[in-house]
């Protein structure tokens, strides 16, 4: 039972931290709980289906299907998180103001919440499919009774969700004025870490050169499978022995998203009176 609890906890933990950040990043937006829980529910259903096709996926694309699938999911999540950052930094001033002023619903209501729902769904899909495979393995192996197995699974689930809840409750104590700055930074680092993880899967599939295995090694200072190591791995993409190409993906994601926010975040030209185009065209 304890074995099942620990393994389920580990998988839920990662997804729960991501959901915790997403919930804090969308604080105050009406309808967000519906979007986020919808995303998670879709992810859980998807995880069950994914586990059914585990053999097919593993054998696809000459045995690299699993790596390609994981990399694709991670890169899709990176895109969604990037889009979230670009959107909030563009509307940052309105968001901060709306926290105090009336008309909050109007502005935050237009936030692209489906982006965050997709991120939560993908997290649930990735971690959930491993849980399904693992629990199926135990159940099929007859190693543990159904009661003990479900008790362990539920214990692990509760523990993981509790960690996500602690992170969320800690974040929402931050004053509204600063909250979106903090969550935007967290989302940025989350995205960069996922991009590095995707690069790792593409190296594993032999589609990318590692550009140097273990450019540095900090495993003596902080092991990746320690508690803090795992938390930092999920939150900021900590890797004890990163490949060169992982560092490249990490930095490129940071710079790429930053450039996008600069590019799209420029204040719009003043729109006073008649739009410039029309005034020139009308005789």
């Amino acid at each position, binding site marked *: 039972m304890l074995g099942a609890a620990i393994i389920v906890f580990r998988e839920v933990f990662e997804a729960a931290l991501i959901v915790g950040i997403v919930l804090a990043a969308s604080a105050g937006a009406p309808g967000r709980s519906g979007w986020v829980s919808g995303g998670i529910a879709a992810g859980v259903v998807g995880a069950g289906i994914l586990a059914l096709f585990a053999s097919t996926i593993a054998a696809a694309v000459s045995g690299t299907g699993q790596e390609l699938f994981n990399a694709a999911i991670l890169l899709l999540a990176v895109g969604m998180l990037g889009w979230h950052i670009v959107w909030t930094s563009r509307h940052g001033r309105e968001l901060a103001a709306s926290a105090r002023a009336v008309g909050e619903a109007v502005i935050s209501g237009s936030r692209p919440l489906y982006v965050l729902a997709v991120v939560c769904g993908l997290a649930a899909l990735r971690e959930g499919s491993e849980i399904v*495979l693992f629990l199926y393995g135990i159940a099929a192996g007859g190693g543990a009774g159904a009661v003990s197995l479900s008790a362990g699974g539920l214990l692990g689930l509760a523990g993981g969700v509790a960690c996500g809840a602690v992170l969320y409750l800690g974040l929402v104590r931050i004053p509204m004025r600063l909250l979106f700055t903090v969550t935007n930074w967290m989302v940025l680092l989350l995205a960069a870490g996922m991009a590095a993880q995707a690069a790792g899967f593409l190296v*594993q599939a032999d589609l990318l050169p590692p550009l140097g295995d273990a450019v540095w090694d900090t495993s003596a200072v902080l*092991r990746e499978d320690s508690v803090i190591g795992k938390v930092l791995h999920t939150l900021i993409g900590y890797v004890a022995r990163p490949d060169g190409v992982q560092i490249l993906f990490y930095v490129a994601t940071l710079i790429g998203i930053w450039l996008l926010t600069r590019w799209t975040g420029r204040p719009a030209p003043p729109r006073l009176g008649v739009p410039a185009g029309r005034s020139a065209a009308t005789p």
Partner: protein
Amino acid sequence: MLRLTLLSLGLIFASGANLAAQEATHTLVIKDHRFQPTEIEVPAGQKITLLVKNEDPTPEEFESKDLKREKVIPGGQQATVNIGPLKPGKYEFFGDFNPKTARGHIVVK
């Protein structure tokens, strides 16, 4: 510019494929939630292919933080895991679904 980038990407992939053709294969068997053998010795600075055969009826995940690899292998199936080139040292791996029994390491010399 774009064509040049695509061309160089193509070259990178092609060189990766060339290396793949030369690398050595080591077989690792999973049976009764244990790895056989538990120690594999490989030369440093070379790409290696691990052929992991899961002879258990249940799925297992080959995982290694040291090697930065994770791959689910369904019951009764096999999968290849590309590793290296590696620096000399000891690299631990384990079965994520049975971490207590399924353990082993690669010694790079």
